[in-house]
């Protein structure tokens, strides 16, 4: 499942496409305010950008650029960021996850909620990305070649 794919064409296409797929994932996460998308879809696409090199490229490159530890780490960090966003609102005197309660300078309440949505989408994206990479890594097993 892991390791360099025998076909040169597949390796080249996989290597060339994966950074663009990952970038599209980031775009989808950030673009949730204005179009379809958000953390869930974006996180999955970002994970595809990491899984594709693992399917096609040498393990040294695929696991060197994104190590196995990143999966669970990203999942936990995303979850933590989401929960902390809610707690910050509570500490600021509002309800759990009420972004407008956090007063930052002169920013309007609606703008704060806009930013809060962005933070939460990034957190969800990280968590979903980590979960997908973790499941793939565990299913596919350890890298075969060095």
């Amino acid at each position, binding site marked *: 499942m892991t390791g360099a794919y025998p076909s040169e064409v597949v390796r080249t296409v996989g290597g060339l496409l994966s950074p663009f797929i990952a970038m599209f994932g980031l775009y989808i996460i950030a673009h949730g305010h204005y179009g*379809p998308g958000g953390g869930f879809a974006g996180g999955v696409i970002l994970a595809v950008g990491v899984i594709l090199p693992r399917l096609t490229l040498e393990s040294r490159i695929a696991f060197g650029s994104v190590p196995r530890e990143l999966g669970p780490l990203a999942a936990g960090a*995303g*979850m933590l960021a989401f929960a902390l966003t809610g707690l910050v609102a509570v500490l600021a005197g509002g309800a759990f996850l009420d972004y407008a309660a956090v007063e930052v300078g002169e920013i309007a309440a609606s703008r704060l909620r806009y930013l809060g949505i962005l933070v939460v989408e990034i957190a969800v994206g990280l968590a979903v990305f980590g979960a997908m990479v973790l499941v793939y890594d565990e299913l596919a097993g350890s890298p075969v070649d060095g």
Partner: protein
Amino acid sequence: MILELDVLLFVILIVTAVLALKVRDLLAAVALLAAYSLFAALIFAGAVAVDVALVEAVLGAGVTGVLFIAAILTTSRRADVVDSSRRRWATLPVLAAFLALMIYASTGLPDKGDPEAPAHQGVAPVYLEDSLEDTETPNVVTALLADYRSQDTLGETLVIVTAALGAALVLRAREQEELG
């Protein structure tokens, strides 16, 4: 929404689903499931549920297939032949009764996009009318998921992360068992 297109998509959907169940080669079944998800995404897009369509296309037609194939490569590619002829006669009436109940229940559903539908009473109009002013977010779905109902999203994310961790722990335990 175009009725003919919807009917065609639903027919393809059902055909791919039945074929995915019937086929013995599991790799072919995975490909059929991916096709199923793609057509489901098209139906969602046709119903102007673009966010759902995107997730269905990305998850169902994309990553799930890869994960299934990874699972097949570590287990077996052929499905065991199960003799279920006797069980079939027991399940058929149950399925038929369930289908009849579902069709009967669907006659009481409101029309698609009916403004008088119960789902469009209560808080829904408030979300639709005020979300742009409240959150500066043009996409109502995002405003709903990440602001008004962010606790639901927190729970959903927790479910995904927990499921992934659970699957990883089970797989790792099995790997260590095999190593001795």
